[in-house]
């Protein structure tokens, strides 16, 4: 049995992995296909002899200034496939504010009459998208800098190690505050860069550790004796070993970035359509707790699932931990 097959078997057997993967899929799928879950306009419609797909995206000018009722009326006589909820995250529903759960609004509406499910789904897109891009940027930065530091060594290595330590312990919220002071309107990319500016350090540390550990290993010496270039040795022989710790760190990263995004938006430093903003709506005296509770539930599911999976993967790849159970008895 190869090492990978062993890991795969352990992963598949783990309850936490299965549970986490299921829950994460339940969050990621609606986030990816948010337009199928909640939108003002139908997903596609057969109208005047032509098929219109995603009219809200393809022809946004057509619907400028139309109320949801107008849009409904417009497609009434056509063959149309509507999303689950017929209102977007910013649309005020005809049912008015604080509508109870019903067929049109599965989770009801908030104080301004916006559909809660729609807001949750688009919030998931914001949170997960931010996490994805921030982690990707930090991955690229971290692998590059970590590999360079591990290979070059000497004073550069020392400097990067110290820098990584400081960046890792630097409070992320301060970076976000500084970036927000510069860009009064929070843009998606400014937040992505702010978060990546702190998160790359962890990846760099992990990658560097592997590079330093393995650069004197026998198989690396053998590869060098065979005439492999440094880049090839790094790419084919050393970096694959860093894959596992980096994957674990990325999964923990999903949890922490989603949480950070919620906190930052809660403080009013983040993006508009976010779970943090929904939570913050419960702060006003006498405000209904609905948005807070639903956003909190969404956070628990997302963060909890990511954390559980990361934890399980972490254990399953560590042979020492994985074989201890019988010994303890």
């Amino acid at each position, binding site marked *: 049995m190869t090492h990978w097959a062993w890991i795969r078997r352990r992963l598949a057997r783990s309850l936490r992995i299965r549970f986490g993967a299921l829950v994460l899929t339940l969050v990621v799928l609606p986030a990816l296909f948010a337009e199928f879950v909640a939108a003002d306009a139908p997903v596609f419609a057969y109208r005047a002899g032509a098929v219109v797909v995603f009219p809200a995206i393809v022809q946004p000018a057509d619907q400028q200034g139309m109320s949801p009722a107008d849009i409904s009326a417009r497609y009434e006589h056509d063959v149309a496939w509507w999303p689950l909820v017929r209102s977007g995250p910013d649309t005020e529903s005809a049912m008015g504010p604080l509508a109870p759960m019903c067929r049109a609004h599965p989770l009801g509406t908030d104080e301004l009459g916006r559909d809660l499910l729609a807001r949750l789904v688009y919030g998931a897109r914001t949170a997960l998208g931010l996490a994805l891009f921030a982690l990707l940027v930090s991955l690229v930065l971290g692998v590059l800098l970590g590999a360079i530091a591990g290979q070059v060594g000497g004073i550069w290595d020392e400097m990067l190690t*110290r*820098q990584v*330590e*400081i960046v890792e*312990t*630097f*409070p*992320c*919220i*301060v*970076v976000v*505050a*500084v*970036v*927000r*002071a*510069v860009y*009064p309107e929070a843009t998606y990319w400014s937040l992505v860069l702010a978060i990546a500016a702190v998160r790359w350090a962890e990846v760099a540390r992990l990658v560097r550790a592997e590079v330093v550990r393995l650069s004197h290993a026998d198989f690396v010496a053998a590869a060098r004796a065979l005439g492999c270039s440094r880049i090839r040795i790094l790419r084919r022989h050393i970096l694959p070993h860093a894959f596992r710790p980096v994957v674990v760190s990325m999964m923990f990263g999903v*949890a922490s970035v989603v*949480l*950070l995004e*919620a*906190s*930052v938006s*809660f*403080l*009013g*430093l983040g993006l508009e359509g976010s779970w*943090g903003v929904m*939570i*913050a709506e*419960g*702060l006003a005296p006498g405000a209904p*707790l609905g948005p*807070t509770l639903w*956003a*909190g539930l969404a*956070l*628990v599911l*997302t*963060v*909890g699932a990511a*954390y*559980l999976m990361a*934890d399980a993967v*972490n*254990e399953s790849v*560590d042979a*020492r*931990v994985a*074989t*201890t*159970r019988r*010994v*303890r008895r």
Partner: protein
Amino acid sequence: MLRHALRRLLWVFPSVVGVSLISFFVLSQIPAFGHDALGDQVGHLEGDLEAHRRSRFLDLPLFFNLRARDLQARVVAARDVIALGKPGSEAMERGPDELARLGGAALPEILPTLDDLSPALQVRLTLALAPVAERMGLKHDGEPSDPAQVVHFWQRFWEAWGVEFRDSTARSSVRRYARYGTDARAKELRTLDTFALPALMEALQVPGHAGEVAAARRIVDLIVHVTERRDAIRVGATVAEARACVERWQRWWLVYEADYLRLAGAARVAAFALETRYGKWVFETVVLRLGRDAKGRPLLDELIASSQVTVTILLLGIALAYLFAVPLGTVSALFRSRGVDRTICALVLLPYALSPAAVGLLALHVGAISSGSGWGAAVLLGLVLVADPTHQQRAELVPVLAEDYVRAAIARGAGPLRVLFVHGLRNAMLPVVTRAALELPVALTACFVLEHVFALSGLGQATLEAVRLHDTSWLMALSVTAAAVAVVSLVISDVSYSLLDPRLRHALMQRSRRRA
């Protein structure tokens, strides 16, 4: 060991400088004239855009200034304006105004070389000095404003007084004036006009007690007279008022120092770095105790006052979290993969995943914790933070319990408690507990959120306010402090780990001995 700690601690400086450079660069991208509390204030006080720009150092380059504008450059510029400007034009007004502002300090630049200029320019230039003569209190019969006599008047003045326009003279007169405050000295210094400003500013001390107020007021009075900028210490002012006034003047001097000094030699080289926005910021930070925030309050006092709440919450919360995390993680590791373990993991994970915002809000709504309660915030912070150390404790202990020496201990007949405490926890607890120091900066986000929920006026609220007002100085101070705290907590974590772990201590000792 001490040497190791000190060497690590030395990294505070490069990292603080690095962080400050980066944040300064980022913050300098703030559009200069937005909604800006400082702008409103200063604009009100001095009434013009130029002064505001200068007071925020926007006329200076960011990091390098190869052509620092000193006294000489300004005098030459003013002379050129007077020489080239058409009579009656706007530039013609500005040149003499600038010369009058530069005042006595400009005289050594102008009067000795007066003969090299054309007669017409001599007259125009010296006529522009009429307000200076007035300010100096020179005796005259209308000569400074009489085109026929003005050049001769100033030449005579320079013959009589030129010897006095030397740094050492100015400094010794100021020293004597500060000590005795005689009218004769005051008159002498008034004659030196702005030439005495550097010495006056050097002699101006922030009054510490009531006895020093009078000396400060004497000097400030002279400075006010010379600069025609009305901001004197009034008679009978309290120490706090006097101190605020002196600090305002020191800040003013930070902005306008180069106008009254001729940069030469080392000073000119230093000006490459110092006459820049970053250089001025560093100077303000080090000498003027971080300067003032956007509302004009002393920044250091604000920072200390608001960080008290935050630091208390942080320390309490972290202590609480670790107090519970270590036993929970231990129990979890002992009952690995069984019901107890799963329950603990889930319970610990729940508040963490719920995010501090939701946890705080729910606690507020349930009525468990009332608004404004610092203790409540600390408890909730502990609740939110407990997940990570618990998991770490569990992850550390599980492999330790599988070690051969634990098996050997069991085989020798050691009891379960002895195995756990002596063989297990002793090895597994250290890496977890020593990481507690690192939580301080990391837990800051959660702390800000909880402060916001419970309406506590700590660092979080102040920072949100600063972001709204684009308060550069506050954010700079915050990020530099954060970097310093990060380094210090790293050192604490590192050193405590190596102190508590004999193996590491040994390794470290050997390494440092080898190096020596």
